[in-house]
């Protein structure tokens, strides 16, 4: 069975500071990892996934299979980044697109 852990419930930083939201996973096979974000009063939506190797809204995340981590990083946080962030895992080649979510980290960016 797979498991996703986000050790921080709340992360508070000042505008312009670097931010790193931690995500660790356990899964015996090959995973696909995602970050989903939920802004205030909006629905949960995909931010990025490791297989795309994209930078979205200045955020990047690298899959580290050795450390089984997929931390989300941004060099300079903006106030509009304040949101709830969920790390999620899906087994690669899974027929059902099953997502296992972490517990989420609330990011607060202070002015």
């Amino acid at each position, binding site marked *: 069975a797979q498991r996703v852990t986000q050790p921080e419930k709340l992360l508070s930083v000042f505008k312009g500071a670097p931010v790193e939201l931690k995500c660790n996973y356990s899964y015996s096979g090959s995973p696909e990892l995602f970050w989903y974000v939920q802004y205030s009063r909006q629905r949960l939506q995909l931010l990025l996934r490791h297989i795309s190797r994209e930078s979205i809204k200045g955020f990047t995340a690298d899959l580290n299979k050795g450390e089984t981590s997929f931390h989300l990083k941004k060099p300079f946080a903006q106030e509009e980044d304040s949101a709830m962030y969920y790390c999620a895992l899906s087994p690669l080649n899974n*027929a*059902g*697109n099953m997502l296992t979510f972490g517990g989420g980290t609330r990011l607060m960016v202070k002015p």
Partner: protein
Amino acid sequence: DAMVIQNPRYQVTQFGKPVTLSCSQTLNHNVMYWYQQKSSQAPKLLFHYYDKDFNNEADTPDNFQSRRPNTSFCFLDIRSPGLGDAAMYLCATSRSRGSYEQYFGPGTRLTVT
């Protein structure tokens, strides 16, 4: 331009009184999912449909059922809600089994009195 719509947004039901939550989508996606999210917890998958093929998660209580009469609509039925079933219920869709992005609805917050 709402793509995944959930009704109602807030639902109050009495202990033991059956309740139905609905989800519709304009994306013509093959896969629809229902998640339960309790306060300060991760969304937890209850079941999903690939087209008309129903897939139940092993630990989803029998109290929860689902129907998908057509591509656009999916329903979550809770036969006898308990206080522990109070939660946010999220509906999501994805284009196919090979497509991993899930599109979420705004959720229905269920209160059980």
